């Protein structure tokens, strides 16, 4: 392909090139909106049909880890935005620093997610043969709050008396929980890969006030993943918390 410096042959100016690239990323993000939108739709229909099971499932999630992760992810969006700014004003060192910070925060998010998934394995809350919502309240783990556990037990027992299928509908909640957070995490992993590529470029001093399109475009993607979490957090973690 014909290329002069950073300018590809089909563009008149660097600015036109950047606007085209941003527009392309936005078009991709539109397909992502509809992709995640389908899952949010499935979630909405099932939540309104099986609200008791969804409430119990939601209450088993650790709100401290969830809210903490929200803070971590929003912070990573800030550092990403700051990386774009640093490139625009030509502070090459700051670009690397902010990109590394973004990657670090993204990794922390994924690590916390891993801890949460492990907990769900330990509590027999993975959809499938071993799934049992009564398991955890009757098999306390070291470090569990007995008051919380008693509350959970009472809740599950009441729900079981009212609807013996609660263990099936609970699996629906956890399938959606793992499906949605899993696909979100996959997007984060892809984003981390893109960040590594950007960090390499920033070490080579590739991003300048004239040319910072890759940072801008990956930034758009990263912020979008943040937005998905902004919806996932209240919808998955905060159902029926006022008990």
């Amino acid at each position, binding site marked *: 392909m014909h290329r002069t410096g950073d300018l590809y042959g089909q563009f008149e100016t660097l600015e036109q090139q950047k606007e085209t690239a*941003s527009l392309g990323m936005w078009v991709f*993000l*539109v397909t992502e909106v509809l992709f995640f*939108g389908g899952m949010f739709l499935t979630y909405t229909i099932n939540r309104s049909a099986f609200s008791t099971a969804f409430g119990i499932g939601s209450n088993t999630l650790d709100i401290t880890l969830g809210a903490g992760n929200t803070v971590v992810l929003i912070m990573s969006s800030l550092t990403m935005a*700051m990386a774009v700014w640093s490139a625009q004003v030509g502070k090459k060192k700051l670009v690397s620093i902010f990109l590394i910070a973004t990657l670090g925060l993204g990794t922390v998010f994924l690590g916390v997610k891993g801890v949460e998934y492990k907990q769900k394995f330990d509590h027999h809350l993975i959809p499938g043969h071993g799934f049992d919502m009564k398991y955890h309240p009757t098999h306390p783990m070291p470090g569990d709050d007995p008051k919380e556990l008693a509350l959970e037990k009472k809740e599950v027992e009441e729900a079981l008396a009212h609807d013996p299928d609660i263990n099936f509908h609970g699996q629906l909640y956890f399938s959606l929980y793992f499906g949605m957070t899993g696909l979100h995490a996959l997007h984060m992993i892809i984003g981390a890969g893109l960040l590594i590529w950007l960090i390499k470029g920033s070490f080579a001093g590739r991003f300048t006030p004239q040319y910072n399109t890759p940072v801008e475009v990956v930034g758009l993607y990263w912020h979008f993943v943040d937005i998905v979490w*902004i919806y996932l957090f209240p919808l998955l973690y905060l159902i029926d918390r006022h008990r």
Partner: protein
Amino acid sequence: MSEHIVSPKIYFAIFASLMLGTGITVWAAFQNFGKLNIVIALVIATIKATLVVLYFMHARYSPKRTQLVIICSIFWLAIMLGMTLSDYDTRPHEMQPGVTRLEPPAAPQAFTA
């Protein structure tokens, strides 16, 4: 037309608002507002998402055609959510998801030649 550089001041202000929004969501989830709980959670999430799109993603300073693409995505999402939910919402009770039929389906007949 030169590109618009958003200042760090704005970025930090948006960050602070997003943190505040997260705090309010968590607080509101522990209050009993009845059916309004989910509405409040979604309104706050939407305000947060709008701030991210407008400032972190520079939509406010983007060319008109990029803004059109963003608005289209919201429009299509609204069609998908609105049409599907209005379908489910207007079904008769026994066709709603989660309603179990009283009589089990008939056992399959043994095959006889």
